[in-house]
């Protein structure tokens, strides 16, 4: 088989603990997004659309939903004779065997996988970002600059720069300094967690990093700074366009809302750059006689008899008569009962909201205190919950399985 020019490695092992209940039984990249997608569809589709046909998906935390979703890779056209999509969990070998202890360690443990394809370049991606990017353009620049490593960067507002890994570059875009979450940022070029490496350089630095007992085996914290200090040619590649880390409840909600509007912030309608996903095999959606809809995304298998405003409905959602959904994200196969009201909420898969229930309603003084550190004012109902008839769920509350309270 001919060798590959470039192989992509997609880091999909993170727990995504800030997504709380949504990642209780699935890895973050498997979380549903945008009506018919899961987060991982974005980097995978970007790969295919960029002409990259060999992708290793590194899994570790709750991989079952993700494994089942990826299957043979057919949905992304990644069922290939030579290449395709591969799920790479941690494994045991004769000498050792251990969990992935960091992003760099995960790639290190899979260097033999990369070597099978004999690529010149390795692309490292994260499985928790929503964006459309042509990696082939980044590779072109990487090659033309004669770089050892190229990092995709995005201009962020100066006041937010302290939350990111910031690249300080010279006039030729060469990175002279990397600062992780600097208190006083010197530039606004934030790392997007997308790297292209020359394979030989990557291999050398990963071997060195593994030997270094003080390292946390993280690309951003250890490997990239080591390369810059080692005088390797590390360049920044400027990306402009929509990019969003959906690692928190509020950013996940906001990114869904970004798909709405006459001119959405993030437009998925692009026949030249389709985002692929696994088809749920359902008929087109049905809008009932009494339905009302305003500024929403609705997909296959839905049946809407109530009102839907500024919301995203996933496949197979039923909205019964008189129900009202506002500013919400409703995940697959959930039923919103007659007369129920759901406001500014993320409702998980296979949930039933009982008749006349109020989800995301105003918090009253007599409500029991609850922890909304993760959710803010967004109400979250975990997968497969059953909200009782006429129940009240105040804004920001998380409804999760609790054997004692029967989900009230």
């Amino acid at each position, binding site marked *: 088989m001919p060798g590959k020019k470039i192989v992509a490695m997609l880091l999909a092992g993170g727990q995504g603990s800030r997504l709380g209940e949504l990642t209780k039984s699935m890895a973050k990249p498997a979380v549903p997004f*945008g*009506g*018919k997608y899961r987060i991982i569809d974005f980097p995978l589709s970007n790969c295919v659309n960029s002409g990259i046909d060999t992708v290793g998906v590194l899994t570790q935390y709750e991989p079952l939903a993700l494994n089942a979703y990826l299957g043979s890779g*057919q*949905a992304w056209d990644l069922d290939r004779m030579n290449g395709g999509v591969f799920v790479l969990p941690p494994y045991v070998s004769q000498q050792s065997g251990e969990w992935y202890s960091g992003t760099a360690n995960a790639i290190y443990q899979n260097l033999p996988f990369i070597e099978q394809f004999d690529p010149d370049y390795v692309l490292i991606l994260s499985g928790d970002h929503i964006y459309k990017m042509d990696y082939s353009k980044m590779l072109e620049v990487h090659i033309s600059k004669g770089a050892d490593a190229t990092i995709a960067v995005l201009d962020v507002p100066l006041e937010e720069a302290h939350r990111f890994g910031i690249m300080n570059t010279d006039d030729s875009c060469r990175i002279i300094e990397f600062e992780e979450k600097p208190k006083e940022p010197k530039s606004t070029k934030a790392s997007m967690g997308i790297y292209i490496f020359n394979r030989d350089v990557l291999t050398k630095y990963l071997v060195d990093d593994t030997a270094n007992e003080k390292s946390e085996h993280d690309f951003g914290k250890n490997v990239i700074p080591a390369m810059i200090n080692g005088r390797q040619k590390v360049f920044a590649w400027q990306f402009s366009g929509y990019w969003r880390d959906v690692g928190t409840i509020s950013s996940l909600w906001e990114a869904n809302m970004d798909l*709405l*509007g*006459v001119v959405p912030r993030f437009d*998925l*309608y692009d026949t030249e750059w*389709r*985002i*692929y*996903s696994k*088809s749920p*095999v*359902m*008929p*087109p*959606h*049905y*809008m*009932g*006689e*009494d*339905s*009302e*809809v*305003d*500024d*929403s*995304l*609705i*997909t*296959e298998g839905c049946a809407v008899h109530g009102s839907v405003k500024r919301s*995203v*409905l996933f496949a197979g959602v039923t909205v019964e008569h008189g129900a009202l959904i506002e500013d919400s994200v409703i995940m697959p196969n959930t039923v919103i009962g007659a007369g129920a009201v759901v406001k500014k909420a993320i409702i998980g898969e296979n949930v039933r909201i009982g008749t006349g229930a109020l989800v995301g309603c105003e918090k009253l003084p007599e409500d029991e205190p609850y922890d909304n550190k993760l959710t803010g004012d967004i109400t979250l109902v975990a997968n497969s919950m059953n909200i009782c008839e006429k129940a009240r769920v105040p804004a920001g509350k998380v409804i999760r399985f609790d054997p004692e309270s029967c989900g009230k």
Partner: protein
Amino acid sequence: MSSNAFGLIYTGEANAQLRELTFSRSVAAVPFGGRYRAIDFVLSNIVNSGISSVGLIAQRNYHSLMDHLGSGKEWDLHRKRDGLFILPPFVTKDNTGVYRGTVDAIRSVLGFVRRNSQRYVVLTGSHTIYNTDFDAMIRQHIATGADITIMYSDESGNDFDRSEQYDDLRLKVDEDGCVTELTFNPLNPSTPFTGCDAYVMDKTLLEYLVEDAAAHGEFDFMQGVLIKNQQKFKFYGWKYDGYVARLNSVAQFYRHNMNLLKPEVARDLFNPDHPIYTKVKDEVPARYIGGGSAKNSIVADGCIIEGEVENSILFRGVYIGKGSRIKNSIIMQASVINQNCDLDYMVLDKGCQVLGGRRLAGYDSYPMILRKGVVV
């Protein structure tokens, strides 16, 4: 579980009543129900029966059909063992490539029939839409010891319209299901039991019947094989009680599509236990913006709706501009209706464009069709 049967689908039906809908495609490729084509139903029925070998006889304008089916992967039919076999016409010493009828067509694919290791053949046409699996029919076929089992439905609830009659096979059956009389396109049908264009038989019998019919100069399966042999062989009927849509005319095409707006019909044809597979287009979810709405309508993915839609079916990737009102219409894939248009009782084929402010209307009994790609 794999079945001891294989499927054979004939897609060469020629029915002038379908007018513009079949100008550039075979009946099998006629769009139906917002994201499907007629063939998706019979093909999914076969796959949902655990049948893994399917031959599809192509004849007329089969380009769009081949395009739709591809390797068969969406029906799980791209296999090393068995799978989907598209059987286009070909010219040989004793075959002109243009079939004179179903018998001719089946005769030219007898090689495929013989090669299959399964014993029974499920033989179907492509213009009849229903959602079932063939297991019960095959079981009954074996239990009764029938030579041929014919699937039929009771059409007593529907008015008979002679002008829409096409390949109309009528059956009389006794209480055991044994067929006592078969008639073809009768002037005044004396029975409401109507064939669904699906048959189960032993494949060796099929081989014999088509060779025998051809030898006697018969070219049509219904007339030359079924009607001629009704005394000679044991025919049984298998009654199907679900919804059956026969695409016999534009009016029927329209009516059956519109019936999908009735929950009981949609539940029957889109039974989640028997999913209907189709080519996946990776369209984005439908988007409603700027006061766009849809009432009592079926809307597929990829649509952008800024106008008002009522009692209509929108296929994938349709755009409805601001101020436009679409009523009682079927708008096929990728058609664009610009601003301030009024459409009533219209059928727009794929890729039509209606420029701003146009008013187009057909009538209940005679919906107007815009041919594929027309700009108004």
